[in-house]
C-alpha cells in the first residue's frame, strides 16, 4: 500500500472518547488527512479496509517511553521500538530525557531524524531540565523546546536541592513549558528495589517505602503552586500520592498525572520467587494501592495510562533480583492490557480508551489522540474480540515483560500515523 494513498475504512465501530462518538461509521483518509466520518462514504480509487466488527480508535498516545539510543543501556533501537508501538496501535509517544541525555539540540535532532526515517510513530522528546540530568545546572530548555521538545523533566533523577528545582520550574514557566515530574525522594528510596511491605520483608529485598513518592510529590506540588508552572506527574504508584493529587486538582493547580499499566494490573505479590521481570521503579505496590490507582483512573484523579516502555536486554534481567535492571517492555501490550482492565470491570470502555488517547494528549499539551477531520489522520483499527498470541507476535527488542508469552484480547489490524500507514496485517 502506498504511503499516502487514500484509504476508506468501512463499517467499523468508531470510538472517539474526546468527542464522545461511539457509532458504526466509515472514515475517509485523503492525502493523509482524515477528511470525512459518516455513513456509507464513497471514495473511488481508495484502498478499502473492511472494519466490520472491528473498532476504529484514535491512535494511542503513550505519555512515557524510554528510548533505546546507543549508550542508554537498552536494547533495540528507535526503529524496532516504534514498530512495536505501531503494531500496538500507538501513534504518538513522549520520550523520557534519559537516553542521551536529551540536553542538546543534537540529541533532539538525532531522535527526530531516526523516528522520521523509521516512520512508525511520532516521538515527542522531553527535554532534560538540568544539564546531563545531573540536577545541578539548568539545561537550555528554551532552545530544546524550539528544537521540538514538548516539555522538560529530569527523568526521576535527583535534583540537588529545592532551590535548584524552584529555579528549573521558574525558568520553564517563563516559556510556558510543561514540566514532567517523577516523584521519588532519592534518600528514602536509596538502595531499594521493591515496595517496602510484607513481600519485600519476607524476600529480604531492600524496600522503597510509599512515602518516598508522596514526600517528594508534596514538595513538588508546593513548588508548582509557587511558580505557576504546568505540571504532569508520571508513574504515580501509591495511594497517599492520590490524596495529594486530588487536593491539588481541587485547588485548581495546573496539574495532571499518569500511571503505568503494570501498576494497574500487578502488585507486590508478583515478586514472589524473585521474578525480576517485575522489577520496576517505582516498585509494584500493595493490592490496596492497585485498587486505589484504578479508582483514581476511573474518577479522573489520574488522567492517563502509559506503558513506561523500557526495553532491556536479557542479560540485564538474568541476575539475582536486586542486581537486575529495573524496567518492563510495554508498547506491544499497552492496548491489550487496558482492554483487560475493561473486561475485569475496573474501567468503562470509554474511560479506558480516553486514558490512552485524548487524556495523555491533553497532559502533554499536544494535538493528538482524537479523530478530528481536517487534520493528519492518526488512528488504528482493532479487532477487539480476537486474541493475540504475544509469544508469536512480539516486536519489541526487549523481552522483559511478564506478558511476553501471554495471549490477550486486542489485535491491531491497521495503524495510520499522521496520514501514513505504519502497521497493517493481512
Amino acid at each position, binding site marked *: 500500500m502506498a504511503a499516502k494513498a487514500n484509504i476508506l475504512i468501512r463499517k467499523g465501530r468508531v470510538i472517539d472518547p474526546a468527542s464522545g462518538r461511539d457509532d458504526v461509521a466509515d472514515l475517509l483518509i485523503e492525502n493523509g488527512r482524515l477528511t470525512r466520518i459518516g455513513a456509507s462514504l464513497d471514495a473511488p480509487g481508495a484502498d478499502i479496509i473492511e472494519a466490520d466488527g472491528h473498532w476504529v480508535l484514535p491512535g494511542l498516545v503513550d505519555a512515557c517511553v524510554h528510548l533505546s539510543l546507543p549508550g542508554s543501556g537498552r536494547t533495540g533501537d528507535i526503529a524496532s521500538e516504534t514498530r512495536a508501538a505501531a503494531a500496538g496501535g500507538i501513534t504518538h509517544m513522549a520520550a523520557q530525557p534519559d537516553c542521551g541525555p536529551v540536553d542538546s539540540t543534537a540529541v533532539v535532532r538525532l531522535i527526530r531524524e531516526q523516528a522520521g526515517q523509521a516512520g512508525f510513530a511520532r516521538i515527542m522528546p522531553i527535554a532534560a531540565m538540568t544539564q546531563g540530568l545531573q540536577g545541578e545546572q539548568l539545561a537550555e530548555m528554551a532552545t530544546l523546546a524550539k528544537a521540538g521538545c514538548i516539555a522538560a523533566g529530569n527523568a526521576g533523577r535527583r535534583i540537588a536541592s529545592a532551590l535548584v528545582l524552584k529555579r528549573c520550574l521558574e525558568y520553564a514557566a517563563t516559556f510556558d513549558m510543561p514540566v514532567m515530574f517523577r516523584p521519588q525522594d532519592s534518600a528514602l528510596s536509596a538502595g531499594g528495589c521493591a515496595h517496602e*511491605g*510484607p513481600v519485600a*520483608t*519476607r524476600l529480604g529485598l*531492600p*524496600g522503597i517505602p510509599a512515602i518516598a513518592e508522596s514526600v517528594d510529590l508534596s514538595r513538588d506540588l508546593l513548588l508548582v503552586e509557587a511558580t505557576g508552572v504546568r505540571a504532569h506527574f508520571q508513574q504515580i504508584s501509591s495511594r497517599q500520592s492520590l490524596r495529594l493529587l486530588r487536593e491539588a486538582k481541587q485547588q485548581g493547580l495546573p496539574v495532571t498525572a499518569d500511571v503505568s499499566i503494570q501498576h494497574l494490573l500487578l502488585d507486590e505479590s508478583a515478586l514472589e520467587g524473585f521474578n525480576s521481570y517485575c522489577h520496576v521503579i517505582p516498585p509494584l505496590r500493595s493490592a490496596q494501592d492497585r485498587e486505589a490507582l484504578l479508582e483514581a483512573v476511573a474518577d479522573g484523579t489520574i488522567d492517563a495510562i502509559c506503558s513506561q516502555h523500557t526495553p532491556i536486554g536479557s*542479560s540485564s534481567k*538474568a541476575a*539475582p533480583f536486586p542486581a537486575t535492571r529495573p524496567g518492563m517492555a510495554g508498547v506491544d501490550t499497552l492496548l491489550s492490557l487496558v482492554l483487560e482492565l475493561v473486561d475485569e470491570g475496573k474501567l468503562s470502555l470509554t474511560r479506558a480508551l480516553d486514558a490512552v488517547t485524548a487524556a495523555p494528549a491533553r497532559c502533554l499539551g499536544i494535538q493528538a489522540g482524537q479523530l478530528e477531520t481536517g487534520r493528519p489522520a492518526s488512528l488504528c483499527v482493532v479487532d477487539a474480540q480476537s486474541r493475540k498470541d504475544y509469544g508469536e507476535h512480539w516486536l519489541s527488542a526487549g523481552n522483559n515483560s511478564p506478558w511476553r508469552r501471554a495471549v490477550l484480547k486486542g489485535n491491531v489490524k491497521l495503524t495510520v500515523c499522521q496520514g501514513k500507514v505504519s502497521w497493517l496485517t493481512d
Partner: protein
Amino acid sequence: MTLAPSSRVQLTDDGKLRHFLTTEHLPRPLLEDILDTAASFVDVGGRSIKKVPLLRGKTVVNLFFESSTRTRSTFELAAQRLSADVLNLDIAKSATSKGETLLDTLRNLEAMAADMFVVRHQDSGAPFFIANEVTPNVAVINAGDGRHAHPTQAMLDMYTIRHYKGGFAGLKVAIVGDILHSRVARSQVHALNTLGAEEVRLIGPKTLLPVDAEALGATVFTDMAQGLKEVDVVIMLRLQKERMDSALLPSEGEFFRLYGLNNDKLQFAKEDAIVMHPGPINRGVEIASEVADGPRSVILNQVTFGIAVRMAVMSMAISGQDSVAAQGGAHGS
C-alpha cells in the same frame, strides 16, 4: 526471569530435597528429616576416623561472593567428612571483579562437572536464580543471601533447640536485635513455625524491625522486658558496626542498655531458658560476657552441631539430585 516458588524449586517431584535455599514452605517432615539425619552425623565428629563415604567422587564448590571464613570452613569440613572433593572459590576477589557475569562464572563451573554449589551472595534471591535459571542439576545450598535466608544456620539452631528442649511444642522463642538486616532471623522464624513452636517473637527498635514484620509469622516487641517474658529460648543477633553510620542507632552503648542481653534482662525469661547466638559475638554490644560464657549459653554447641546439620543437608540434596538423574530427568531446566 520468572522463578518458580521456593517450595517447588527445592524439591524433586516426589518431595525430596534437591536444593536447600530457604526454610520457608518446606514441609515439617522434611525439616525433621534434616534434624534426624544430622543426629546420625553428630557422632562422626567424635570418632577417630571422622569420615563417611556418602559424597565420595562428588565435587562440592564453595562459591562465596561475600567472604566469610567461619561459614565457609564449616561447609568445607562438612563436605570433607562426607568424603567429597572440595573447591573453594573466593569470588569476591576473583572472576566477577574482572567483569565476568555471574551467569558466565556459573556456566564455567558447571562445565567442570561440579555436583554441588554452596553459595553465599550479597543479593537476596541469588541462590534461587542459580538453582532455577542456571544450573538446576547442580545441588545448590544457600549459605546466606542478602537479607533473605540462611537456612543451614537456622536448621543448626533448630537442632540446638531440639537438643536442649526436647522438641518445639509449647516453646516461646525470642529473636533479638537487628531483625531488618538478618537473613538468619527470617529463616529461623519460618523453621520455628513449621516445626510447631508456640510463639516466635521479634524484639528490637523500630529502626531495626522490617515493615510488616508480623508477615513473617511472628509477634513484634520493642521492649525487652515484655518481649523476653516467659520465653524458653533467647536468640541474640549480631549487630554490625555500620548500623551506627546509617542513622539506624545512636550508639553501641545505648543499644546495649536497651537491647543487650545481660543477667538482669535474662531474668525475664524462663528459669531454664537457653541463650543462643549465630556468632561471631560482639561482647558488650548485643550480649554481655556474663551471659555469653554463663551456664545458660549454648553458643559453642551450636558450632559443633553446625557441621552435622550441613552434612545432613548436603547428603540429602545430593541424593535428591541423584534420584532426578536416575529418572533421566533434567526437571526444572
